[in-house]
């Protein structure tokens, strides 16, 4: 038991993202309203984005812009330590992932609008009832 606590503290970013993910998943499964489900989905995706952003971070590091590197001649002399700079790659990847999640959210909202126009409700149980009333042609 005493081993677990330091583990949680040392990797708190992992625990946080898992908690966020589970909140999102819970909303997607348990909520009855389609918009709430969508918000849950967004939390789920954001949790993963936070996970990626957190793994690029290093203690005591700064932005990955080489200091005093104007024109290249002084950067030539300076020794560059990778440990001084945070890893920008996961952050760049997440730009793409954010675009993907925004696009997904947009498509899903458009579908919600259509569903609302057709059935005048976004509550899932009511939807299920109205769909079952549609005659099979």
């Amino acid at each position: 038991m005493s081993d677990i606590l330091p583990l949680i503290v040392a990797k708190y970013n992992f625990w946080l993202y898992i908690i966020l993910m589970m909140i999102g998943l819970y909303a997607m499964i348990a909520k009855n309203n389609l918009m709430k489900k969508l918000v849950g989905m967004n939390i789920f995706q954001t949790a993963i984005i936070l996970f990626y952003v957190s793994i690029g971070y290093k203690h005591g590091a700064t932005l990955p812009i080489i200091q005093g590197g104007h024109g290249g001649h002084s950067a030539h002399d300076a020794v560059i330590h990778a440990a001084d700079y945070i890893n920008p790659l996961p952050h760049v990847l997440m730009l793409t992932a954010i675009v993907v999640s925004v696009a997904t959210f947009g498509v899903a909202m458009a579908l919600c609008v259509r569903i609302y126009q057709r059935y005048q409700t976004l509550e899932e149980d009511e939807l299920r009832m109205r769909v079952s009333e549609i005659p099979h042609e």
Partner: protein
Amino acid sequence: MNCACVYRKYPMNDMPAILVLAPLLGAFFAGLAAWIQKQLSYYIALAALAVSCFAAVSVLGDVITAGAVQYRMAGWAPPMGIALRIDLLNAMVLVLICAIAFVNLVASVKSVAQEIPDRAPSFYVMYLLFVVGLLGVTATGDLFNLYVLIEITSLSSYTLIALGDRDRGHLAALNYIFIGVVGASFYLLGVGYLYITTGSLNMADVAGILKGIQGSSAVLTAFILCILGVWIKMAFFPLHVWLPNAYAFAPVGFARVVAPLMTKVMVYVMIRLMVTVFGLEYIFETLHLADAVVWLAVIAILAGAFMALSQTDLKKMLAYIIVCEIGYMVGGAWLGNDPGMTGAILHILNDGLMTFALFLAVGNIIYMRKQVAFSHLSGLFAAMPWTMAGFVLAGLSIIGVPPLCGFFSKWYLVLGAFEAGAYHFAAALIISSLVCAVLFFKVFEICFFPPAAHAPGPHAPGSPLSAHAIHAAGHGSSEAESVAKANSGAGANFGAGDHPPAGKMAEAPVSMLAPLGLVSAAIIAAGVYAGTIVNTIILPFLQ
């Protein structure tokens, strides 16, 4: 297994890039052209896919003669830059994707005009983007790029499914989004863990680094998350719930391309992750998951087959058959021996062709009769003999009748099952073949008889029919085959016009029949040349 092949650093030409970019540019211009004239977007889509087909075939020829190709996007070298990497396996899948997408576009133009006349240009734009996604997923050599392209494929399929059935299409698409996002997110998370442990995203590079750290629990987490994500996307049995509705309510023109391709491409991704990224030694020697996964596949096969049995709509029935076939491929890949993997890879090709042929026939029937509930199918052999001939051929191939391609992949899968001692998998294959026989002969029988004059019409695919079909199937495949021949022969006779009045024959237009004929020929050819395909493409890949 990984890298006996020689990499040519610079391919002779830009074909790999053209292959993926042609439909992307096509989508852009098809969208623009719709402002000028709606019909233009169709021709642009056709031209773009024709270019892709040409590029795919030329890349396949290139890869067969000279080994795997690596194409560096914008000239950046792989561990840093993003590369397309095409070897024998994905060259074959690329040709399959391009060919099916192109042929379906020709076959579907009339369906699209009938079903969604006001949205035809948007349909073609999204269709092209869907194909871009599939081609990119197949061609890429980069793990994160794979995620983005999977999402491009998925997003375009969400929108296309929503174009379908006006009452249920949107709900089916929304359900698919919820589950699809979870799948893609799991995969993305798995890639994150891989990146933490290896610091790279290039598949070959990651594979090289993973060799040294196989015991790591982070690698295990990454593997489980990636595979789980891909399983959700391919509708592996307990995770299949989105598929039947999504495919049944999609517009026909899209259902015909998503059903054969989407799940098969995801199976390809799984095999790629297993063979190229994590390595088969890691999966089968370090981890001990294979037995459990083969059991899961057995359950998937049986569940898919029996759920198909309870359907009363042809589209839904075929959707559950896809769930069953996914079980074949996952099980084959996880048997852990060469025949099993060969069977799984060959089945990607064969199942793509068979499912495509079945959905082409379904599309033709829908075009003429508006729907395919079993109660609306009576008298089809008389009315649409050519469509039904193609349907029977594809159905027999799914059942696994010898000269057709479905038999050969099943043969390899059964061989693999025996070699691995997985007799339950072999048994599941055989039971599901029998169930498929029952399913298809039930449909053939309903289609064979003309609608009874005194019957109440739309409410009677009665149990006597299916009981009879079970009886027919129980006699074994040789007799079943002869029955089917008699059936299709009889259908052709009706078509010739000696029995029913000429007005009764209502066959789909030639532009829909010719593709079906072409694919039927491909099913026979893939069966006849199965040995050649295995020897020139699959075995060299597995070496």
